[in-house]
């Protein structure tokens, strides 16, 4: 499967930019333990179960899925905060899991994270200057001590904060400003990759756009690559070049932003996209509407075969026995992990007259929506 995947990846990838992060069939199982004195393992939470992806320089990879699908665990794996149960994660061609000591530290400099909650991810007793400058304490060789203060102030300026606020404490800032502090801290070591784990979901609507725009502007300025993990599908579409859709620890569909949003083929992607409401009342009742039954099954005991089959309207016997691989099937342009992958437009209005300019931009004609 892994070779298949990397073929897929290279086909998908844009011509420009070399691969900075290559993830192949990575798995992370957490043991479920029972017993007080003698703990024995009674099962495993298959948090991430065979995910492959590729991140190129200067691009943004969106990872979407509902809570419990393993997207945050994937982020932690990429950061080297969790050791994968199996599979490989290569940063600039070097296996992360093999690194030790100084090399591991050096690797860590290269990949940084921005966390979701700007309230709990900043130490309330440290000043902003200390927070943003802390990476230099961990990696003293990154920057000489005498330059640190000015660099921290420059970083604050880069993320749109007043450099003179360097001695203030986090509680003196609003949610959006705190997220900027977190971003400045992530930028301190000049990483190539930033993993953003739900970076805007705790922010108010009017502030969200400020932070999203900041991410885009920084990417342009520093040539950063982002892994953008979020549950807000509209924000992910806005910022991503490519998107991985996850369900219960597996990647179910992988493609460019246009392939995923304009031509989704996996039933789960379709259900997910159709559930997102569009802020336009004229589309009410004119969009394809898929309501899924039931809840996500437990990752301790996932369904056999296709993990989505328990909620899928297309499921047949084969889905319970054969696990569909994330491969490009005949007639499709991108990989989808469904035996019956067919395209269905769930984002736009079914009615041609109501289609928005965005739809025309992609030259969609609306005839392929009859798969209902």
């Amino acid at each position, binding site marked *: 499967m892994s070779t298949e995947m990397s073929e897929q990846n290279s086909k998908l990838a844009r011509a420009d930019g070399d691969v900075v992060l290559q993830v192949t069939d990575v798995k992370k199982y957490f043991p479920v333990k029972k017993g007080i004195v003698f703990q024995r393992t009674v099962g495993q939470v298959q948090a991430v179960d065979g995910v492959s992806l590729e991140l190129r320089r200067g691009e943004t990879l969106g990872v979407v899925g509902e809570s419990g699908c393993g997207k945050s665990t994937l982020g932690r794996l990429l950061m080297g905060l969790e050791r994968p149960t199996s599979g490989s994660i290569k940063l600039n061609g070097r296996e992360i899991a093999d690194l030790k000591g100084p090399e591991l530290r050096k690797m860590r400099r290269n990949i940084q994270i921005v966390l979701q909650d700007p309230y709990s991810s900043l130490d309330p007793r440290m000043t902003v200057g200390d927070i943003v400058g802390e990476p230099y304490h961990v990696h003293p060789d990154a920057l000489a001590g005498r330059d640190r203060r000015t660099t921290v102030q420059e970083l604050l300026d880069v993320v749109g904060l007043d450099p003179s606020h360097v001695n203030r404490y986090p509680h003196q800032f609003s949610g959006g400003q705190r997220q900027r502090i977190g971003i400045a801290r992530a930028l301190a070591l000049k990483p190539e990759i930033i993993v953003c784990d739900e970076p805007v979901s705790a922010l108010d609507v009017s502030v969200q756009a400020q932070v999203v725009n900041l991410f885009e502007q920084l990417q342009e300025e520093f040539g950063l690559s982002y892994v953008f993990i979020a549950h807000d599908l509209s924000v992910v*579409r806005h910022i991503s070049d490519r998107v991985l859709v996850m369900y219960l620890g597996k990647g179910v569909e992988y493609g460019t932003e246009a392939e995923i949003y304009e031509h989704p083929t996996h039933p789960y992607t379709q259900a997910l996209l159709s559930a997102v409401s*569009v802020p336009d009342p004229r589309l009410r009742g004119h969009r394809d509407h898929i*309501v*899924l039954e039931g809840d996500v099954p437990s990752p301790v005991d996932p369904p056999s075969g296709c993990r989505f089959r328990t909620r899928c309207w297309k499921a047949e016997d084969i889905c319970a026995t054969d696990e569909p691989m994330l491969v490009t099937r005949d007639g499709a342009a991108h990989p989808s992990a469904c035996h019956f992958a067919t395209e269905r437009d769930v984002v736009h209005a079914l009615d041609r007259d109501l289609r928005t300019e965005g739809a025309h931009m*992609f030259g969609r004609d609306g005839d392929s929506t009859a798969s209902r």
Partner: protein
Amino acid sequence: MTDILSNGHHRAIRTPLDALAFDEDAPLLEVRDLQVEFHTRDGLAHAVNGVSFVLEAGETLGILGESGCGKSVTAQAIMGILDTPPAKIAGGEVRYRGVDLLSLDESVRRHVRANRIAMIFQDALSALNPVFTVGWQLGEPARKHSGASRADARRRAVELLDMVGIPAAKERVSDYPHQFSGGMRQRVMIAMALALEPDVIIADEPTTALDVTVQAQVMDLLAGLQKELQLGLVLITHDMGVVADVADKICVMYAGGAVEQANVYDIYEKPAHPYTKALLESIPRIDQKGQDLTVIKGLPPVLTDRPPGCSFNPRCQYARGNCAHDEPPLYDVPGGRKSACHYWEEVLGS
């Protein structure tokens, strides 16, 4: 479904409600110039500053705003569940079928709650009591308000769970809240709100804590029940997408005040207030790619220290000199709309 609801074992006792002169021709719910203040250490905060709206049976009103704009306080004031102090209702009226609820004694008002106006909260896990079964909590309105027996109340709880689409309701009724998933818990909340057949439901961010696919399920259920039972629904949310899907009319709130009110189609097509317009332009849409997100500069004001004049003026791109000292009234805009902007014509035309 109405059969299930009116099989008679509740509303058996006479309640103080029978003494009230409800006027069935008056609007279902009418809020007039509601003012709520909070006395805080930092001074007086006008959390709600002159909000008015009318809600008829079978209608959905979306109250849209960011955190701290006063939308939840408005809901709590209507329900009569504000903590006073620190809150104080400084003025205005909340009329249900013509009767001003704010003038009622608390002993009467508690019968209006649940019987006539019920509320659905955002966080079902903290709104439900973890040490009682769901069935016990669902039967509580019937026991307390209608004097139903324990057995009757339990039967009623099963009916209610059935109505909100919880599978195997007979078994699930003896489960505790933690045994339900997030979406199922929110269904339980909806069931509880419907327990005494209210006419008005106030839903405060009912789907915010849920995953998208579950959110769609819960909104479908709520909208379906609203239509079926001809409820008046007040939907409080910050999600412009959710309101666009279900609301009939919208009230946009900013810093405690209603800044724009209009029919849902008008407001999304041509907003008449700069704040609404900026909000709509600042969110990415799932059906479009490549649009620029307009940034609303700055932050919403602190309620204890609102800017003089129009509270949006420091962030507004249409602001002129007079905006900083003349507080705009709610101007009438053609088409039965209202906008609290001196330059609404310009905003509407742009």
